[in-house]
């Protein structure tokens, strides 16, 4: 079985699991709804202030929401010794990383679309002002969160205090994603030109962490 085939199988298995149990997606959707509703109550009522705060708030909401999903990314593998069987696949384990990160990416893109609807409804954000730039920032943000989150989620499996540890490990490493994504979203929504450097740096960060995840995943699953 080729590596790409294993990645596809893992990807399809995780997606099937998400769609059948609906636990991961359902919990993230309800959490995002709750947080955005709370934000809409506590942020100032004037529209310019709301719009100024929205890009940063959106990405903070997405970070916390994605944490819920990423924390469960390896939960299914820990049950009934599934992880021990998964690592028996006769391929480079980097492919398993790609499969799992891919499934998390799809879940995160779904959550982003949901959060975008919530921000449009509760905070009056007009995404039609710059749909392509916002979508591209969303996709790059989801790729970065999925890459870093999948790697760290695998590290945190079986570690004591994992609920505490995962955010402590994740937040400092995803800070650039938050900064790049919220800056691009803010610039695009305000009609300002988004710096080319920002796009390159964002893409490079995703690429670096996807590569690190691919190459070190073998060591992570080995133990």
């Amino acid at each position: 079985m080729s590596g790409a085939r294993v990645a596809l199988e893992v990807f399809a298995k995780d997606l099937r699991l998400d769609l059948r149990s609906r636990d991961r997606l359902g919990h993230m959707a309800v959490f995002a709804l709750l947080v955005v509703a709370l934000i809409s109550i506590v942020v100032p009522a004037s529209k310019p202030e709301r719009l100024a705060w929205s890009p940063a708030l959106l990405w903070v909401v997405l970070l916390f929401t994605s944490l819920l999903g990423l924390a469960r990314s390896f939960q299914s593998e820990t049950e009934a010794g599934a992880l021990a069987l998964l690592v028996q696949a006769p391929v480079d384990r980097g492919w398993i990383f790609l499969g799992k990160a891919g499934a998390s990416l799809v879940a995160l893109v779904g959550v982003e679309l949901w959060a975008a609807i919530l921000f449009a409804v509760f905070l009056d954000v007009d995404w039609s002002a710059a749909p392509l730039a916002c979508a591209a920032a969303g996709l790059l943000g989801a790729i970065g969160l999925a890459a870093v989150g999948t790697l760290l989620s695998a590290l945190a499996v079986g570690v004591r205090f994992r609920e505490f540890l995962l955010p402590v490990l994740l937040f400092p490493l995803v800070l650039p994603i938050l900064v790049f994504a919220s800056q691009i979203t803010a610039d695009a929504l305000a009609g300002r030109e988004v710096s080319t450097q920002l796009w390159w740096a964002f893409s490079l960060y995703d690429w670096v962490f996807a590569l690190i995840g691919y190459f070190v995943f073998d060591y992570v699953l080995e133990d």
Partner: protein
Amino acid sequence: MVSAAVMLSVAGALAWLLWLTGDVGERIATTRWVGAVAGVLIPVWLLLVYYAPIEIAQGVIQKIFYVHIPAIIPTYFGFVLAALGGALYLRARDDRWDQLAVAGAEVGVLFCSLMLVVGPIWAKPAWGHWWVWDLRLTTTLMLWFIYVAYLFLRSFAFGSDTAKTFTAVYGIAGIAAIPFVYFAVDLAQGSTMHPSNPAREGLPPEMGRTVGVGMVTFIWLFAWLVAKRLELAALQAHALVASRVRSA
């Protein structure tokens, strides 16, 4: 001159630590010489701090600079050691590299904490705020968070080999993130109130010399602390083996 001494000290301390890691048991005696170098440098640096001219605008509080600025070198040094030791551990599965990585991270966090604590003590009278949105402040705090998380991971991971592998992976990921953390805040127009490196080179000679001697002192103090941490790890490993032999 000062920059050359700092670069030579970093290269010398790195070469010595790598050599020491090769056989801590046999080579640990050399630690006393490094300790002696640090022991001579510390009073010289303190005297230079005492006699350095008092800055007119800021007064005596400016002398915090002589602790704050030199602490950055061992901070970066420690985190580079954590990544380097981690990568070498993953490649060779040799516990000695893991011990070097953990020692580097622990002592690096110590110097980073020192820098983050003394900075605001100076900033309050100088800027009027303990903390401001500033490029270097923000990135240094993130750096501190990354390596404190590294130490948490180390203490929470079960089983020795798992903990070693996990921290090696996180140490490598952490060092890869640092340029991006810096770059990200820079691109987000995070203004900085800190001077640039060329501005520091332009300090009056007495101040520049004091900062330079402080950097060299901190580098050798850092190397000594890392060596003592390596010695402690070697003793712990020895005690573990002895207790297993006794119980067998």
